[in-house]
């Protein structure tokens, strides 16, 4: 018994240290389902609440920018509307049930907490399960892609920012449709890398890069950015630097994309796998 006590006296701290570090490693490893832990959920909601209050106060400084963004978006929408109406005047046009035609629903949300200074950045949004948010929904801004929802609480949700080393997205050149995978290398918060573009593809700086919609997460044709530079990397592929159209530092209003056909697509795809 005394030996045991002596041992504990001598090595107790090291044992405690190892134990606490083991807990830390366990917590890190269980990251994907940590919303099961009630405590963390409650604290997350509290910190999101605090962040929202702070955000509301600092929001006034960026009102001018947001207004401009909204005006620009309104202009685009008006133009789109013009095209639709003028088309329907020319051809006969039967109205079909919108449930079968509409593929996407957009939910408006606000980024209440956002970081760009880490290697793995996340964005907290003020809409949750109660507002229809689910995991793996696309997050887009007025100017282009923003991220993907990875966790949804009842009133808040957390999105993985495109500025995250784990972020993957399939994207293509809009002029000729060649697609590759989009990743972030952690260096520049204004640039993503588009990999696996074949060598023979005709590229120029300023070309538009957009989403492909292959994954059923992002709608097709959402703006990613423009080609800023490209170089041949190991073999037959280009590594293309894409200048992001979304300003992550000024992120405010975003849309969450609900894909109504997603389950059907994924079911079909899982059948043949």
């Amino acid at each position, binding site marked *: 018994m005394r030996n045991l006590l002596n041992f504990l006296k001598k090595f107790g701290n090291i044992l405690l240290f190892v134990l606490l570090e083991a807990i830390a490693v366990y*917590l890190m490893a269980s990251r994907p389902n940590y919303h099961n832990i009630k405590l963390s959920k409650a604290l997350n909601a509290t910190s999101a609440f605090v962040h929202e209050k702070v955000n509301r106060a600092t929001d006034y400084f960026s009102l001018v920018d947001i207004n401009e963004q909204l005006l620009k978006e309104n202009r685009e929408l008006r133009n789109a509307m013009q095209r639709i109406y003028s088309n329907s005047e020319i051809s006969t046009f039967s109205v079909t049930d919108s449930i079968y035609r509409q593929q996407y629903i957009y939910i408006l949300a606000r980024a209440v907490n956002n970081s760009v200074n880490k290697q793995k950045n996340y964005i907290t949004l003020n809409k949750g399960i109660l507002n229809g948010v689910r995991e793996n929904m696309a997050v887009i801004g007025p100017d282009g892609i923003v991220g993907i929802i990875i966790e949804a609480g009842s009133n808040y949700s957390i999105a993985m920012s495109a500025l995250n*080393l784990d972020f993957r997205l399939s994207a293509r050149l809009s002029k000729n449709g060649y697609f590759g995978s989009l990743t972030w290398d*952690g260096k520049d918060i204004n640039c993503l890398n588009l990999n696996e573009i074949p060598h023979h593809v005709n590229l120029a700086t300023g070309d538009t890069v957009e989403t492909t919609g292959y994954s059923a997460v992002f709608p097709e044709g959402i703006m990613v950015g423009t080609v800023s530079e490209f170089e041949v990397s190991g073999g037959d592929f280009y590594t293309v630097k894409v200048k992001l159209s979304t300003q992550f530092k000024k992120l405010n209003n975003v849309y969450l994309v609900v894909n109504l056909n997603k389950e059907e697509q994924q079911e079909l795809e899982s059948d043949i796998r």
Partner: protein
Amino acid sequence: MLNTILKYTGLFILLIALQILLMNNIQFSGFVNPYIYILFILLLPFDTSSWLLLLLSFITGLIIDLTSGTLGLHVAATVFAGFLRPYVLNLISPREGYEKGELPGIQTYGFRWFITYILIIVAFHHIALFYLEVFRFEYFFRTLIRVILSTGFTVLFVIIIQVIFIRR
């Protein structure tokens, strides 16, 4: 005793609030992320027992983790720093040893002693933190630069806070 506990609770809340509301919002090219909450562990009295140090490190790390959505990351780094603290203190102890009941600070053993002390522990804390965050060797040197720059800024902020807030 109660007075000390109250004082440290106040310090704890102040540092956590500063960290979450101010430091986490510093966005300077992604290379500078000061983590000043570690100052709480640094400022505990010299005669704090090691197990208490470890437990307090764990709690501090956990709270930072829960508010920034990185569960386990800050816990691991802070517990590591808390574990190292007694050894570092031993290493740089003044010739006559530490006086009982004294608190680490600029006033206690001078500026040079204080800066050596915080520099060593903050550096180890940041090394653990940034390498665990990235968790791959691919970006070894870039992470190293982030560690060095962030350590510099954390030490700078720690000294500023020490000078402004904590004079008794």
